[in-house]
């Protein structure tokens, strides 16, 4: 899992601009294996851009991203894509389920892409439904699910392949308080059970309080705060 003695995931001095607009000016972050880290900051501060760089979706112009002793910012897109599929899970603000597929097919998707046989993939996917309070919804399509249900299906999809890191970008942003808490309870419980690290982007302090610690992004720069005791 983790490199000997070092963090599982480490980004150092990341810089990235979109046109003339700098999104990251000097962003650094480390995530240990199994750790839950909240990335907080105002809208437009660069926190989602940081998450995309950590996950190998975007490539920084300066700085480096190292995951499990692999420098991922210099990998080609195909290799990064393979890494995302095999080692990472993703949850976004709007579940982004594939509307043509049933809930269980959505959850099985990462396994199917990995080449797991359909029967086995669906079997493993179904195992997540009771765990995430989704029992009975296996055959529904995303249009037939409530916002909270759809987000829990997205959660199962992010976790089904046992990723080393789950990247969650405002996972409760489109949900009411109760549904949001339900999603966070399940995300934290399941990630801890299987030892997945979580990078949680949120502007909501109550959501961030589920994490072990937080990193603040302001104007593209990170500040880590040690909890005061």
């Amino acid at each position, binding site marked *: 899992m983790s490199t000997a003695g070092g963090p599982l995931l480490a980004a150092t001095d990341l810089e990235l601009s979109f046109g003339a607009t700098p999104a990251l000016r000097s962003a650094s972050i480390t995530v240990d294996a199994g750790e839950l880290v909240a990335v907080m900051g105002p809208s437009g501060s660069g926190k989602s851009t940081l998450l995309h760089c950590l996950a190998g979706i975007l490539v920084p112009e300066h700085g480096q991203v190292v995951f499990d002793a692999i420098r991922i910012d210099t990998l080609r897109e195909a290799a990064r894509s393979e890494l995302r599929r095999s080692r990472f899970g993703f949850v976004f603000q709007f579940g982004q389920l594939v509307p043509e597929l049933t809930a269980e097919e959505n959850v099985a998707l990462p396994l199917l892409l990995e080449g797991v046989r359909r029967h086995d993939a669906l079997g493993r996917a179904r195992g997540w439904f009771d765990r995430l309070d989704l029992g009975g919804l296996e055959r529904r399509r995303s249009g037939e699910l409530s916002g909270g249900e759809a987000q829990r299906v997205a959660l199962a999809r992010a976790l089904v392949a046992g990723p080393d890191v789950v990247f969650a970008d405002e996972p409760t942003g489109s949900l009411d308080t109760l549904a949001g808490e339900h999603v966070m309870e399940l995300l934290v419980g399941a990630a801890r059970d299987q030892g997945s690290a979580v990078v949680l982007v949120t502007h909501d*302090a*109550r959501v961030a*309080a589920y994490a072990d610690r937080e990193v603040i992004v302001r104007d593209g720069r990170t500040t880590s705060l040690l909890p005061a*005791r």
Partner: protein
Amino acid sequence: MSVPLALLGLLEREPRHGYDLKRDYDAFFGRDKPLPFGQVYATLGRLARDGKVIAGEAEPGSGPDRKRYVITADGVSDLEAWLAEPVPAEPHLQTVLFVKVVLALLSGRSAETYLDTQRAAHMARMRELTELRRSSTLVDALLADHGLFHLEADLRWIDLTASRLDALAKEVQA
């Protein structure tokens, strides 16, 4: 927290001995600050004097705690009035946080460092309360939620203040 009215509220459910009443109070309201026995009996004494409760005859047995207290109609009426009355929605402008920020700006010290430290302390407490609510009964979770929402309100103020420090410094130092 108004202890006399809280005790009246607990007594309204059923007549209680002072000791049981203290135990009820601590279980519901006294998590961080249990009610001292002395305060329980002093409060019950005043409530009895004012006709809000009646102390029963001392019952046989050892120890001082042998009286059973019963709420009166007057006590119930006070309780009802209090329960229906909104707590003043004070803006709490004179909090320690506000005073510290203004003093830091006045003296040219770093208000940003203070706010960052305060933010970390708030987040640490929010993590504790979040953990508590995850492992507790619904009643305890309700109390933790109350704390969490208040801390969140402070944090939003901290964030807003942090983003306005330059302008604030100019105004305070003018």
